[in-house]
């Protein structure tokens, strides 16, 4: 195609469905977390509508768990909870930055909507698609919508049925996340640099998950490993 056609914006396309379809395996792992969040929300004393509102507006599993727990412990302190949320989600700055080359040509509002739906899982699925077939905004919107919908529905399930469901995190479904991420990671390990990045991230993530609080291990491991990768590549490209 020589001329870029203006996008028939946001009409449902095959890419939307593909994005949603590719999300199914990882989504199975999110369901027990959404249900558990709904249960926890009520258990710590949030009302059903407050519990649901948080899923609708924040859409960030770990941060919601932590803040609900803090509220449950009697910490109804705006700056403390919001700052904790910021720290837990800082890793998204890195993910957002790495998507930048693909999304800056989009209209600002559309880019913002896609950013709202960028969580660990949708980011991984979108990057995996980029690696295989290139970037598609429809695909990204497809996976984002699928995860948003399942997060809301599983939160609702937790709120409504919570008391009757035995601990959902004991189902073993939480293994769906690392398993599917493994399937996305393996095809990336194609040369010495990428394997080094993976090894550095593995060692630092394990060590910092042991000794540091919260989600710092993700940021620290990813920062140092990707910097190492960039440096290795810089050295190699100067050598040729």
């Amino acid at each position, binding site marked *: 195609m020589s001329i870029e056609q203006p996008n028939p914006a946001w009409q449902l396309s095959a890419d939307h469905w593909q994005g949603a379809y590719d999300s199914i395996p990882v989504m199975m792992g999110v369901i027990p977390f959404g249900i558990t969040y709904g249960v926890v929300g009520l258990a710590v004393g949030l009302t059903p509508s407050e519990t649901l509102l948080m899923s609708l507006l924040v859409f960030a599993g770990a941060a919601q768990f932590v803040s609900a727990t803090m509220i449950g412990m009697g910490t109804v302190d705006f700056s403390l*909870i919001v700052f904790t949320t910021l720290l837990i989600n800082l890793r998204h700055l890195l993910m957002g930055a790495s998507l930048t080359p693909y999304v800056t040509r989009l209209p600002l509002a559309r880019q913002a909507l896609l950013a709202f739906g960028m969580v660990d899982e949708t980011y991984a699925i979108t990057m995996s698609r980029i690696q295989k077939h290139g970037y598609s905004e429809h695909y990204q919107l497809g996976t984002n919508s699928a995860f948003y919908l399942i997060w809301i529905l599983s939160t609702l399930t937790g709120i409504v049925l919570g008391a009757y469901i035995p601990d959902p995190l004991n189902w073993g479904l939480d293994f769906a996340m*690392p398993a*599917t991420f493994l399937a996305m990671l393996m095809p990336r390990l194609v040369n010495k640099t990428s394997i080094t990045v993976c090894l550095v991230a593995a060692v630092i993530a394990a060590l910092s998950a042991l000794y540091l609080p919260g989600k710092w291990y993700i940021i620290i491991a990813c920062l140092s490993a990707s910097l190492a990768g960039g440096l290795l590549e810089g050295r190699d490209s100067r050598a040729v």
Partner: protein
Amino acid sequence: MRYEIVIIILGMAAVTFMTRFGSQLLFRQVGMPTWFDRWLKHVPTGILTALIVPSLLLPKGYLDLTIHNHYLLAGLLAAVVAYKFRNVALTMGVGLAVVVALRLIS
């Protein structure tokens, strides 16, 4: 809904959105330097590894390298399946089956 809780939720929503959109907004204004691009290329590998490894090695918060760590065993097998077949659904299916089976027999 209580006023102070709604305000907290709005604050959480604002900072969360900021972390997801902030860096993109910045680069939209100033453009991205090439050295930065070379670095960011490795972010997906780093993030994926950082999300996977602790959930396999420390599923309960402490380092568990014994055969009682079902997540580690299933993860190793899933890694082999992922490497050989490059198939997400298969990798997850095998991994989940192993976790559930180990839980039943132990």
